[in-house]
């Protein structure tokens, strides 16, 4: 069943068409990878769907409703969450605070001026359990600004996860982390989204990550979709091989 669908989505920056009439779909419960070279339009597409950017043309339909004109917070309430390529955290708050804030927001408790945050013990307990799920319970009281890059990446995803999304966009979740850390990070994320049946769209450059963790791959090139298929289909797709992945040199 289709969870998200974009129809003829366009985003132009001056003369440059970053997203050029993209028809893109995400099915319920699938883990999808968005691949493409730098400037292919992957992040712009996610920015359009998540509401960071406004589309110049086209339509975004999420769970059957047109969300094209909706604000970021309306899309989040509808069930679209995201993490960022450059980690976006609240650096002067603890890891626990970072996650708790997302829960407070989800439960619409951030509107309460005259209620002590500490009085909402179940929220803090849930935040702690989410950190534990991501293997970060030991870092609960550490300021986000003091975490390692790998931990920051995981916390970024944990914040998005705390919003209980139906669709989670992960923009390069392993960029900037050591090769050794990539697999544990992806294992953690993958097991969580699959066990919770959250649809996930992962932008990724590391092809080992892409082919190991995704059910479907969408390849983008120059603002348009170049190919769409299972990892096996993409691996054999001539256009993808010549444009993005490259063929092994013949000896």
């Amino acid at each position, binding site marked *: 069943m289709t969870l998200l669908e974009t129809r003829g989505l366009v985003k132009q920056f001056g003369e440059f068409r970053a997203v050029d009439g993209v028809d893109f779909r995400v099915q319920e419960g699938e883990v999808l990878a968005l691949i493409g070279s730098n400037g292919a339009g992957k992040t712009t597409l996610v920015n359009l769907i998540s509401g960071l950017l406004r589309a110049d043309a086209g339509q975004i339909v999420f769970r059957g409703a047109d969300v094209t004109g909706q604000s970021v*917070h309306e899309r989040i309430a509808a069930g679209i969450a995201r993490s960022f390529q450059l980690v976006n955290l*609240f650096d002067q708050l603890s890891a626990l605070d970072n996650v708790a804030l997302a829960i407070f927001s989800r439960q619409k408790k951030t509107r309460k001026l005259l209620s002590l945050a500490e009085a909402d013990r179940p929220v803090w307990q849930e935040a702690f359990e989410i950190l534990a799920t991501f293997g970060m319970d030991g870092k609960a*009281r550490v300021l986000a600004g003091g975490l390692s890059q790998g931990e920051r990446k995981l916390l970024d995803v944990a914040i998005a996860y705390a919003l209980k999304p139906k669709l989670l966009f992960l923009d390069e979740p392993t960029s900037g982390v050591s090769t050794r850390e990539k697999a544990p990070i992806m294992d953690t994320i993958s097991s969580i989204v699959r066990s919770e049946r959250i649809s996930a769209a992962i932008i990724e450059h590391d092809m080992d990550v892409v082919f190991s963790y995704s059910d479907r791959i969408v390849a983008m090139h120059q603002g348009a979709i170049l190919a769409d298929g299972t990892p096996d289909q993409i691996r054999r797709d001539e256009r993808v091989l010549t444009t993005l992945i490259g063929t092994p040199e013949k000896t």
Partner: protein
Amino acid sequence: MNTVTVALEHRSPVRTLGWAIPALVILIALPWVADQYQTILLAYGLVMGIAALGFNLLLGYTGLLSFGHSAYFGVGAYTVALMVKYLNVTSMELFLAGAMVACVLVTAVFGFACVRYTRIFFGILTMALSQVLWSLAFKFFWVTGGTDGLRVPTPTLLGFVTGKADKIAFLATAYYYYVLGVFILCVALMWVIVNSPFGRALQAIRDNEVRAAFVGIQIRKYRWVAFLVSGVFTGLAGALWVPLNGLTTPDIMHWTFSGEIVFMTVLGGFRSFTGPIIGAIVFNYLKTYAVGYTVYWQLLLGVVLVVLVLSLPTGIVGTADRLRARLRAR
């Protein structure tokens, strides 16, 4: 004890009372040990503490530097003066209620315009709007008294305490305790606000606006509410200040007075809850004694600010906290 319990106890109100109660005992005992002049001086400090506390909700917790808080202080003070002039009101409780209503109206409109901007644009816009009010107070002399200002007699407290017999004794005792009572209420209220989920949301906006939006926080709306609360606290301070001073003039609406509120907050440390209060009290003494000591008192305060920024970038409270942490580490 699990991590959640430890984290919650770390921010418990009971923990805060550990330092608040001794401070309160000193403030209550002061009129018995200090002379009237010193007590009135401290009352001024407490009033400015409320103003700085309100201001710091924007600077320290929301990350917005306002150069226009003199406007809300002035709205509070002039509301009281106009209530005396046109309505013959003498009740301090009515003054406070009137000042709050006026401040809500003004800050709601000013805030709506200002929170669309951040950084220097926000600062300039708040300053420009405060200058509009200053010029109104300055030019509409038939209403505001112009540079002569408006006189405000000693008010009636709680419907029965008046200062008709001895104004100085009234200000140093009854009015001091009245100010202290409002001050305690304001501190407690602000403590709850900054530790509420709303307060956390403001800190999130301060730290990372984009991420705050992507956890579902409506940035402008929250900034506007913070602006409103901040302005009302400062207006309340203005309403308490004017009976102490006995007179309000357009000077308190001028942007340089906003600069003083910024100064006292930076002096105390805007990264801590108590910093602006300490800063306001210390600044009040500094200014009073600098004015008495030399005609070049602005120069003296300027030098203090430069030295402060260079040597104590985290303010008095921030530096004290750092020193305490260093001593504990030994």
